[in-house]
């Protein structure tokens, strides 16, 4: 993830130590210190880290931080601010077993709904979820690309196991991050059907008015206008929601004839793949829907993939957070295979669960 950020031109990193995300910070700090390619700030807490990213982004930087559960909770107010002010930045949350301090060195996927609804108010975030070293690299680079294109804070929903993976990976050169459109007379308004305004930086002479209060296209506070608030909140929603297909990184494997679909993401997608391959060997028609974009949820992809699949199993390291979403999207019952013991889910457990179904 650190390498993906660097490849995407990350030149500002602020952070606060927390297991199991700290490796990203030390890697980027060492790189910036060795090359002078960026500014590293070790802040006093995660609130300050997230806030400083917003300031840096408005100064023109490509900014990132990485954290884990408790730190991600502390950042939520600032992340809502970044969303509402359309500030590009990338935030990695390496999920660990929670709530509270939980098990700091153990894996979980319990923050799926926090990514979606962590901020107060109506937010529609963009969240990528890596399952391999190659994903860590390419999805982080992609997060930078979309953060700049859509003027959004973009999230990486990593988990402890994926973040600690060691494997040989073939890395593609990431698609370049398109520089911001630096001139705009109304840097806070655009076509309401998901339009993205240009973004001048501090020091450009644009006399910017950046505020987390409801604002018009010029950034003027409009805290009494029903029309201005609604227009802004709806346009921000449309930025991600209307791009569901474009943002969707889902991988479908063996779904054409599948009678059982496993829906999985992060470390569970790897176990699910192994289980599927083993079951296929013995003739079972099992497929995999590997989600790599969690939000906006790839509804259309899932509906199309599972249209003729009698059984849908959602395997995840939480008590059914995404299973409930999948059930809602498919409008029929699904099988939730949940595990919250701080361990990765074994392929054998998934295979046994599926064997029980038929």
């Amino acid at each position, binding site marked *: 993830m650190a390498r993906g950020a660097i490849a995407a031109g990350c*030149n500002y990193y602020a952070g606060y130590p927390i297991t199991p995300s700290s490796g990203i910070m030390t890697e980027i700090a060492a790189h910036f210190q060795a090359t002078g390619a960026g500014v590293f700030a070790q802040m006093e807490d995660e609130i*300050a880290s997230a806030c*400083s990213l917003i300031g840096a982004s408005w*100064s023109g*930087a490509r900014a990132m931080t990485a954290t884990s559960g408790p730190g991600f909770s502390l950042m939520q*107010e600032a992340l809502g601010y970044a969303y509402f002010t359309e500030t590009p930045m990338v935030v990695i949350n390496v999920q660990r077993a929670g709530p509270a301090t939980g098990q700091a060195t153990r894996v979980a996927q319990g923050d799926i709904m926090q990514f979606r609804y962590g901020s107060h108010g109506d937010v529609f975030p963009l969240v990528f979820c890596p399952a391999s070293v190659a994903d860590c690299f390419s999805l982080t680079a992609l997060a930078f690309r979309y953060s700049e294109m859509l003027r959004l804070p973009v999230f990486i929903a990593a988990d402890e196991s994926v973040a600690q993976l060691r494997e040989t990976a073939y890395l593609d050169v990431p698609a370049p991050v398109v520089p911001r459109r630096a001139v705009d007379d109304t840097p806070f308004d655009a076509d309401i059907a998901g339009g993205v305004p240009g973004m001048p930086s501090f020091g450009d002479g644009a*006399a*910017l008015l950046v505020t*987390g209060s409801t604002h018009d296209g010029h950034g003027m506070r409009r805290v009494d206008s029903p029309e201005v608030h609604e227009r802004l909140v709806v346009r921000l929603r449309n930025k991600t929601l209307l791009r569901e297909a474009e943002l969707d990184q889902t991988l479908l494997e063996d779904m054409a004839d599948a009678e059982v679909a496993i829906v999985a993401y992060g470390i569970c997608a790897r176990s699910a793949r192994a289980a599927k391959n083993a079951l296929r060997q013995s003739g079972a028609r099992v497929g995999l829907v590997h989600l790599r974009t969690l939000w906006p949820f790839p509804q259309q992809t899932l509906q199309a993939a599972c249209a003729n699949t009698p059984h849908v199993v959602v395997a995840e390291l939480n008590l059914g957070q995404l299973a409930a979403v999948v059930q809602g999207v498919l409008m029929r019952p699904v099988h939730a295979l949940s595990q919250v013991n701080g361990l990765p889910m074994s392929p054998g457990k998934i295979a046994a669960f599926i064997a029980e179904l038929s």
Partner: protein
Amino acid sequence: MTRDLSHWLRHPDAPTAFCPGCGHGILLGTLLRAIDTLAIAAQDLLFVSGIGCAGWIPSPHILADTLHTLHGRAIPFATGAKLANPRLTTIVISGDGDLLSIGAGHLVHAARRNIDLTVIVANNGIYGMTGGQTAATTPLGVSTATHRAGNPDAPVDACQLALAAGARYAARFPVTDPPRLQAAIARAIATPGFALVDALSPCPTQYGKFQPEDSIAACYRRFEADVQQRSDAATGAAMPFGEFVP
């Protein structure tokens, strides 16, 4: 001599959102005069504020880049902006509740790390915007919305706090002394490294509401006296006006 400051204002003809008699409007004028004398190009200036009446001092009034942030977080926002573009003369101006209570930790660490910021505390000794609750700066014994019988806790001395953390310059003056306040702001901006100005900027509406005086002038006098004397009597630590250099 009066200076024409209208070129610093985004909407020179519009009124401010402050109550009549609010210190924050005077502080805005004093700040602009200080900047005007320093001959800094508007393009190179960034004003960062938090949430509260004081957060509105720069935003939207000043015609320069302004960043109106979250309650308490102006300093870390400013830190990121300054580190990413060191060319920006970065001025944080926000309330006492904002900078010395919810955001006090950030102040300490920005001073410790000697981030080149000028932090101006628009100190009215109260949470103005939210209705006059006791603040970390409310002088001892002063009646507020949350302590009608008098604030039981000693206030924080912003200058001493900043200096102890490593600030290169600190000063305290009231808005009723514009020449010295203006000079202190100018010196703070010119100071390389972290500098703080504790600007006493009374709130007749919310601070004054629980005081016996009924005139704005009397409210100003009482607040200034309370800051200098009450804390002195109770804690043994005077909060005098003046400049403090480490």
